[in-house]
């Protein structure tokens, strides 16, 4: 199984994402922002970082990279895509997911171990979790406040499209404490915290993040 990890100019977490992919026994394929060829990958991860220096808006310029035109097209027909942090911002800017990520309400850049509750375990990236399961993974961003209009929020909640929610004190002002969402089909997931930094207790707060990567393997194998 081949999972592509995109590198934009300014991506930071592509190496950790590739490491997480290898940790669950899949092949990590480096995808370059300027190359529209997806090299036959079975799924794609858009990693965290500061693509294009976060100029204009986070993810706004990356969204128009050649690799994204291929990803947007294939994601619409079911290619599993996980956007983490900056990757989530890119997915929102690409309109593959609704809403937008704005400046944290307290204006601080956050870097902490965050408890999340998995709300939807029927997506391509969360099927190895239990619904309602609590996990601890790092949260690190300056613009992680999930915002959308009331009708979008009602739709996300009503259709069970909220994938994960912050537990405890509100870290960034996200509506309804939303940390991650998915599309109707469940193949596209955007998540603000970082599961790829929590795959081994030696280097992270837990190994709770592994489930995102084992889930996609389970999905592929069962197909």
């Amino acid at each position, binding site marked *: 199984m081949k999972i592509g990890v995109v590198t934009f100019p300014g991506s930071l977490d592509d190496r950790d994402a590739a490491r997480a992919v290898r940790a669950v026994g899949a092949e990590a394929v480096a995808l370059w922002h300027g190359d529209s060829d997806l090299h036959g990958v079975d799924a794609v991860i858009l990693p965290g970082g500061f693509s294009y220096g976060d100029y204009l808006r986070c993810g*706004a310029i990356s969204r128009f990279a050649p690799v994204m035109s291929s990803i947007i097209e294939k994601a619409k027909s079911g290619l599993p895509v996980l956007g983490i942090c900056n990757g989530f911002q890119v997915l929102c800017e690409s309109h593959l997911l609704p809403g937008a990520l*704005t400046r944290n309400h307290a204006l601080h850049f956050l870097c902490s171990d965050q408890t999340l509750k998995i709300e939807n375990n029927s997506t391509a990236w969360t099927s190895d979790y239990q619904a309602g399961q609590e996990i601890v993974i790092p949260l690190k961003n300056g613009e992680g406040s999930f*915002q959308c209009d009331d009708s979008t929020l009602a739709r996300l909640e009503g259709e069970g499209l909220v994938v994960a929610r912050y537990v405890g004190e509100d870290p960034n*002002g996200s509506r309804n404490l939303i940390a991650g969402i998915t599309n109707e089909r469940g193949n596209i997931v955007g998540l603000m915290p970082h599961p790829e930094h929590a795959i081994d207790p030696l280097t992270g707060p837990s190994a709770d993040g592994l489930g995102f990567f084992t889930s996609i393997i389970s999905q592929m194998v069962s197909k």
Partner: protein
Amino acid sequence: MAKIVVDVMLKPEILDPQGQAVGAALPRLGFTFATSVRQGKRFEIEIDGEATDAILAEVSKAAETLLANPVIENFSVRVEK
């Protein structure tokens, strides 16, 4: 040559913590006039020739596509005299 200005502002219902922080700093400096501050972006675009309606329509399209995120922002396009 003409200059076209695109102003981008967060929609009124979107929280603007940067504007709030600026608004909170003003009275500390003795400026007590402000009841609210919101922060936006301004793009100045220079073109060769006249700013025709066709060009302004293209600029609007560019603003909607790239300069602003219509999910959270409004924009306006005008020609600077």
